[in-house]
């Protein structure tokens, strides 16, 4: 029964995909051009004269062609403003990982502190509540102004947006460790450091990883916008550059790639959280 359910789900997925493609195909069928009253052949030629213009909504076939073309050579480097999709994604991933790691270095210890000490929790909570809802991109002008480096500013924006979910989840996970376990540790007179690493950390790990997973999702959302803003390199810059060219085919291609990489990142964290999961 379970097997047939999976099978039917796959079938439905494929069906939905087919429907979307068909809908897309029908929506982008070449429309009959209104018989141009321009008898002037020269004018028609200057207007593109039947040449395929890349800017209109592309057909599935065009996107498929772009997909094949771009993926067949993902690592080319034609100067500072024209690099393959693999290199662009690499830049974005490197920025995300840099900002995310910095955030983890700050958020997890701080989360421990907030979770273990009620007084720190009360003292820091107003700040967390105030800073948490600020859109990461709102920090961008301030970051550019103070850091004076666009690449570092992008990393800072990733840092600031990754910070809060990790901090809040760590604090929550640490605070929610079972009283019994802590009491046992107390009875055994375990040193505070050992208690933190051997009792609290494993108990809170699934919650911490959930926080990290949420942070990574947000970071990948934000890097595209940040790179569109500051330009230079990265997948966000690629989208901006193709938008500047009004080429929707390449924009759709980039959107697909962003989705695939985002999904892979999420799957990686899903796998990590299974590693630390436990049953009471």
């Amino acid at each position, binding site marked *: 029964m379970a097997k047939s359910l999976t099978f039917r789900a796959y079938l439905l997925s494929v069906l939905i995909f087919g429907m979307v493609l068909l809908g897309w195909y029908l929506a982008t069928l070449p429309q009959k051009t209104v018989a141009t009253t321009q008898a002037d052949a020269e004018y028609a030629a*200057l207007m593109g004269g039947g040449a395929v213009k890349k800017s209109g909504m592309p057909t599935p076939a065009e996107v498929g062609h772009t997909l094949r073309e771009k993926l067949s050579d993902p690592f080319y480097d034609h100067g500072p403003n024209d690099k393959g999709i693999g290199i662009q994604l690499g830049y974005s991933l490197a920025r995300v990982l840099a900002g995310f790691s910095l955030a983890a270095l700050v958020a997890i210890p701080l989360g421990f502190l907030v979770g273990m000490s009620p007084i720190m929790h009360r003292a820091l909570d107003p700040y967390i509540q105030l800073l948490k809802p600020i859109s990461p991109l709102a920090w961008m002008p301030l970051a550019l102004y103070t850091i004076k480096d666009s690449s570092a500013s992008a990393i800072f924006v990733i840092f600031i947006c990754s910070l809060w979910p990790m901090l809040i989840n760590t604090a929550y996970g640490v605070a929610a460790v079972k009283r019994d376990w802590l009491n046992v540790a107390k009875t055994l007179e375990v040193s505070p450091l050992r208690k933190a690493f051997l009792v609290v950390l494993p108990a809170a790990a699934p919650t911490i990883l959930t926080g990290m997973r949420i942070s990574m999702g947000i970071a990948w959302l934000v890097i595209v916008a940040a790179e569109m803003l*500051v330009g230079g390199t990265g997948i966000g810059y690629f989208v901006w550059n193709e938008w500047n060219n009004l080429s929707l085919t390449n924009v759709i291609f980039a959107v697909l790639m962003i989705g695939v990489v985002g999904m892979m990142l999420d799957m990686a964290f899903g796998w990590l959280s299974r590693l630390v999961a436990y049953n009471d």
Partner: protein
Amino acid sequence: MSAFDDPFDPKTKLASQGCSCGRHSNQAEHQLDEDARIGRVVETTVMRALFPHDETRRNFIRAVGASTAFAAISTLFPMSAAKALAADRAPLEKPDLKIGFVPITCATPIIMAGPMGFYSREGLNVSLLKTAGWAIVRDKVMNKEYDASHMLSPMPLAISLGLGSQAQPVDVAAIENINGQAITMHIKHKDKLDPKQWKGLKFGIPFDYSIHNFLLRYFLAENGIDPDKDVELRIMAPPDMVANLRAGNIDGFLGPEPFNQRAVYEEVGYIHTLSRDIWDGHPCCAFGVSEGFAKTYPNTFAALFRAIASATEYAHKPENRSDIIKAIAPANYLNQPIPVLEQVMTGHFADGLGKVRNVPDRVDFDPFPWQSMAVWMLTQLKRWGYLKGEINYKQIAEEVFLATDARKRLKEMGLPAPASNYSKHTIMGKEFDPAKPEQYLKSFKISRA
């Protein structure tokens, strides 16, 4: 080598004779080889500039023979003089430069100087960095991430005066392009050819401190429309202008090329007025450097100026335009369709209303940074309330626009340079005298000053 030299030092040579690199029998032969190498570099650069497509060059050489080709090119280009110049050039303090640009045709000289070898001919190793917008250009110049950059010509004035940013002196080394903008209207307004009917419409402009903003405001005001009260001006990036025009969010825009022609090509707009018809020869974009650059790296700055000025001179000639288009169209630079760029650069274009127009100076290039143009921009900054209080027009113009410097260098290069830094300009039939800016400012009916 002397008997007391250390034989274990890799820099000493044990042979009794030879040159400093150890590959020639004596120093004179080494020198000869060195000169030949510099000569080769110059020749290669010149040939690359003349024949951006290698196949054309090979066909040409095959057709006429190498010696005839060399002689023919030498008559066009002083090859030996260039070699001599290359051989005894002042050493560059900073040969590796980062130069920013925004991908529009205004940046043509800055961009083409890369692929067509104008920078490398001066011994410069330039990375051209495409930038997402004018505010980012401003920030990257202020942060010194860029050594020099493509800017809108009023930007250095605004940055130096601290308008829209902290005050930081920025210099205009050269003007990039003149003309080359247009007012493009949505195709649905094809009956509203008279600008007096434009009350209540929405227009896109690329930046507050842009010649586009000043020209559009001037044009509207001359037609009796108050740009602050009767219409809405929105700041947006040029590709957004085309998309918003298509969506009907704006009714028109005054923007840079190739986006006016692109709007026509996409069949969403028509070209209403070329900016040359508002002010023929108006400056648009500039080549800006932070104030310290010219003083800290005088030789590098001189080389950079020579590269930009000779690229501008090359771009000015209509016969070179098709080669330039091929150099700047790829994804690394403008990333635009060639048919659109061709119409922009040749001035043979479809206007969107069914007519083919021929305006060869639709886009033109002239490097001289007239200080009178700076004074005009200051009057407009004041006219529209960006700049308040008493200002010393002449002093600011002379601090920011390096016209005297540019004249000296243009003369050294044998390029035409005007005798004065100031000129009278005619804008929509009205004369502007740079000696009397306040009087000019008071002559406008619609003004915030």
